């Protein structure tokens, strides 16, 4: 008695993404809370720094990106936690599907739920912070290719801490240092765009970070999940 089931990688990917999206849509807090957090953090800065538009214009890219990092960090918790608590994570790891695909699908679904809304509200916040009009395009582009990197790197951290009871604070310690390159290149791209200079160099670097983490991070996530479900 031997059984072989074959499911194409694409089918597995779609299956898992669909499942995670269904769960998220029935549990809307998960989508709105990080988004709300993002907006509130950004509004705190003018209150703290002062409403002077020149100052705000100068620090707007940094504020938006730091807030994006923090809200990604906040939303990461739901990526594997509930699956780990109710046992579906170990079922997934024991399924005959490659862990690489499963993990990639989960991270992609997470990005759709938390990263994409961030990009949609970012221009609005840029208006509030008097961001230079020239840099709107750069803001959207950097968020578009930068936030998936955050999701992927963050997933490594969550996968490592999902089995730990008080993993939340630890997670930020593990993950935030890894976010630094994205932050640096993204804000610099936006600053460069504000000066009406080409910023494709920075974008290319972020894109290469994206491809690098896309190929390497799922292995680390898979290995970490195996440790956490041990």
């Amino acid at each position, binding site marked *: 008695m031997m059984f072989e089931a074959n499911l194409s990688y694409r089918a597995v990917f779609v299956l898992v993404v669909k499942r995670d999206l269904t769960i998220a849509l029935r549990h809307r807090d998960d989508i709105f809370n990080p988004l709300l957090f993002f907006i509130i953090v950004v509004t705190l800065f003018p209150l703290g720094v002062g409403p002077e538009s020149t100052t705000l214009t100068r620090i707007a890219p940094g504020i938006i990106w730091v807030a994006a990092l923090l809200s990604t960090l906040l939303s990461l918790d739901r990526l594997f936690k509930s699956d780990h608590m109710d046992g579906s994570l170990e079922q997934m790891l024991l399924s005959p599907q490659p862990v690489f695909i499963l993990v990639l699908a989960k991270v992609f679904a997470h990005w759709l739920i938390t990263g994409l809304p961030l990009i949609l509200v970012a221009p609005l916040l840029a208006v509030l912070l008097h961001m230079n009009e020239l840099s709107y395009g750069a803001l959207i582009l950097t968020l578009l290719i930068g936030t998936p990197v955050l999701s992927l790197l963050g997933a*490594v951290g969550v996968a490592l801490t999902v089995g730990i009871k008080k993993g939340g604070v630890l997670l930020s*310690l593990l993950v935030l*240092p890894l976010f*630094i390159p994205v932050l640096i290149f993204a804000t610099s791209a936006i600053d460069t765009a504000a000066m009406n200079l080409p910023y494709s160099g920075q974008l290319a670097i972020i894109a290469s970070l994206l491809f690098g983490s896309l190929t390497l991070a799922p292995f680390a996530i898979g290995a970490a999940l195996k440790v956490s479900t041990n």
Partner: protein
Amino acid sequence: MWKWLHPYANPEVSYHFSVKLTPWLTAIAAILIPVGIVWALAFVPADYQQGDSFRIFYLHVPAAMLSMGIYVGIAIAAFSSLVWQLKLADASAAALAPIGAIFTVIALFTGAAWGKPMWGTWWIWDARLTSELILLFLYLGVIALHNAFDDKNLAGKAAGILSIVGVINIPIIHYSVEWWNTLHQGATVSKLDKPSMSVEMLWPFLICFLGFSFFVAALGCKRFCTEVLARNSMRPWVRALATAQEKK
């Protein structure tokens, strides 16, 4: 080819080996460090630009080099533990992490204390200092992960994955910080340019560096022993050791 290595994968053998090694390493470190430090403090000629503050160099640079070297060492140990299932490699990574973190703190602190008279400020967002600070965060993450798990073997695996991810990121972080720094750097602060070191300045540096390296090795051996014992606490040989210690 690697068969001669096999006995050292046995915790008991490697424990006794490192117990025997520790006094030798300690002795070499105990000779080299005082010689190097006294030489550096009292006998090296003062730098023509920086005067006697230059003597901090003999502490700062070895500490910075070791802090990076130890991290790479931890990552190599973690990698071999993941690939070849060497449990002892995890133990050595766990033993080294706090030492590396302390050297990172020393590098940062001496950097600041050297910077104050040179640059007029304790801290500047200089590329090297910034990378060193981020390295400290990476170390703290690894140590925190080691402490977060109850099971030492699991902790070792988790921290191993993190240190490998970290070591891939170190060059990226370093490059990005350097690039960021050149982008934002004002003209007021000139970096310390690397002078071509004269021989009389180089020798004490080499001795200091070697001394600290042996210090790391000795302390690493000692801590490695502790880690091996903690991971094998239910083994008869460890229990016999513990009772022997108790009776003393």
